[in-house]
């Protein structure tokens, strides 16, 4: 039994770590702008394609791992300034529709540039390591370590640095922060860029495990939404915890069910959570209700 459970548990951790990066950006943007960013899945996809481009130019996955998030971060910043900034004082519904439109544009742009075919990125780390009586692919271990370190770094950023504290303050009360003389629009833009870069990293990290295609973001965004809700919308710690919970639950359930049933089971859990405890693990009560 252990020999079956353990690999699944590790798969769950690996996927959960990447999902955490994706959901973290989504929840921060939600907390800041009140917008469920439908284009977040496309930023995730951009990460994978920017990685393919960077690998094509330099031949190095490691260069891509730096270049892709930077490029996608710039795209994120430009997008925020051009389209989301005019919507700050409007109903969040407009943000939802706007990002839906952005997602259409981004997806089709990628299809036009790279075509609609499935692509693969070769794992930069090969081989596997004997671990607790089984062998586990090195790349997945690297992914887990890298994503976890990044999550830890982000946690330190939010708790220990002035910039991080400003972002958290903006999530709490942007108007008050504005009153204190902080350039809030710039905080929003930079945070959006950061969120886009995180999505890009998640996309590139998962690319050697999954396949890369224009629809990959659409497949992922709902799961990321679910993680954000489960963690409590706007709660950063919550979404990381929820990402691991969902990652592990999903991969353990596949031992007993086919993937479709797993998807339905996850949806079922979500429906119960939304009805019984809509604020999720760590969400503030009453907000957004």
């Amino acid at each position, binding site marked *: 039994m252990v020999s079956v459970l353990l690999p699944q548990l590790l798969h769950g951790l690996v996927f959960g770590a990447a999902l955490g990066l994706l959901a973290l950006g989504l929840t921060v943007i939600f907390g800041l702008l*009140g917008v469920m960013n439908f284009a977040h899945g496309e930023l995730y996809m951009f990460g994978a394609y920017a990685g393919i481009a960077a690998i094509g130019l330099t031949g190095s996955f490691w260069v891509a791992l730096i270049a892709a998030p930077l490029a996608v971060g710039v795209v994120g910043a430009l997008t925020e300034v051009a389209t989301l900034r005019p919507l700050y004082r409007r109903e*969040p519904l*407009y943000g939802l529709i706007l990002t*839906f439109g952005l997602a*259409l544009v981004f997806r089709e742009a990628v299809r036009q540039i790279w075509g609609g075919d499935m692509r693969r990125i070769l794992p930069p780390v090969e081989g596997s390591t004997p671990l607790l009586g089984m062998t586990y692919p090195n790349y997945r271990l690297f992914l887990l370590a890298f994503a976890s370190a990044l999550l830890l770094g982000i946690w330190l950023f939010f708790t220990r640095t002035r910039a991080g504290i400003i972002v958290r303050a903006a999530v709490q009360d942007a108007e008050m922060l504005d009153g204190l003389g902080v350039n809030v629009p710039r905080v929003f833009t930079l945070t959006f860029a950061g969120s886009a870069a995180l999505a890009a990293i998640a996309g590139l990290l998962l690319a050697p495990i999954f396949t890369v295609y224009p629809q990959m973001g659409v497949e992922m965004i709902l799961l990321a939404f679910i993680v954000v809700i489960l963690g409590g919308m706007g709660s950063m710690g919550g979404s990381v915890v929820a990402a691991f919970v969902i990652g592990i639950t999903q991969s353990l359930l596949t031992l007993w069910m086919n993937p*479709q049933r797993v998807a339905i089971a996850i949806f079922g859990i979500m429906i119960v959570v939304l*009805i019984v405890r809509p604020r999720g693990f760590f969400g503030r009560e009453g*907000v*957004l209700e």
Partner: protein
Amino acid sequence: MSNPLSLRAALVFAALALLPLTPWMSKYYLLLAFDALLFGAVAMSLDLLIGYTGLVSFGHAAFFGLGAYSAAVLLEREVSSLWLSLGLAVVVVGLYALLVSYFATTRRGIYFALLTLIFAEVVYTVFRYTQTFGGSDGIQGLPPPSILPGVLVDTPVGNYYLVVSYLFFAYLVCRTVVSSHFGQVLAAIRENEDRARFLGYDVPRYKMGVCMISAVLTGLAGALYPGRAAYATPDLLHWSISGEFLIMVMIGGLGTLVGPIIGGAFLIVLQEKVSSYVQWYSIIVGLVLIVIVLFVPKGLLGFRGALRLRGLRRGST
């Protein structure tokens, strides 16, 4: 209560009824008009929820798709009566909508949107991945429906009149709803749900009621779709379709009924026309959406007071 059919609306419907007599309505344009009016009607019934009650449903594709599958299952078994299709759609969509609205209306704002979305995703997953209803291919190659024994609706003109009749029916229902006392209570719920409750209105019942009306109207539209397309596929149930419905309402203008019809027709025609010139029409459609949100936020036929969607406003309690 005012007459649900104003003179202006009656003239527009008369013009729609006469449209196929004009020389430039080729088969192609009739089918395009079918889609435009059908999805316009769906957007209008969604407007009952969003514009009039302040409930944003992100799961209307499930109502539409279940309606389409109801008709497709019957047509596949050579039960060609359109009335049976519509009846089955009402039953299936009604039961599903009862379940969804019972749970979803317990929550407000974005949680309502997410509940409707996730319920719809369950339906999508079931239809997409189980072979009972054809899996990812759906049900294809369906025969045309009949409105009377032996009278098939198998021409573009026939389908066109079907959809105009349906739009007429749905429009009367929606107009009646919004101008009735029931509709006034819905507006009160949109403006201030707590106050409506304190006045003694059973708010969840009203919300469920309007959800059911909107869902069943959408399901009926879905049941007409296989008659024109000869198929029902799981793509019709996908959440991106729900997103498109929402966009149609936004383009047209919330809380106007007529606006969303125009918005739906506009989006369908835009997609069709642009896709016949370029392959990257999604980019154009996306850009048009962005431009509308940024520069024409009240929609093509805007709401004249301030837009109120209390539940979705950030931080409001």
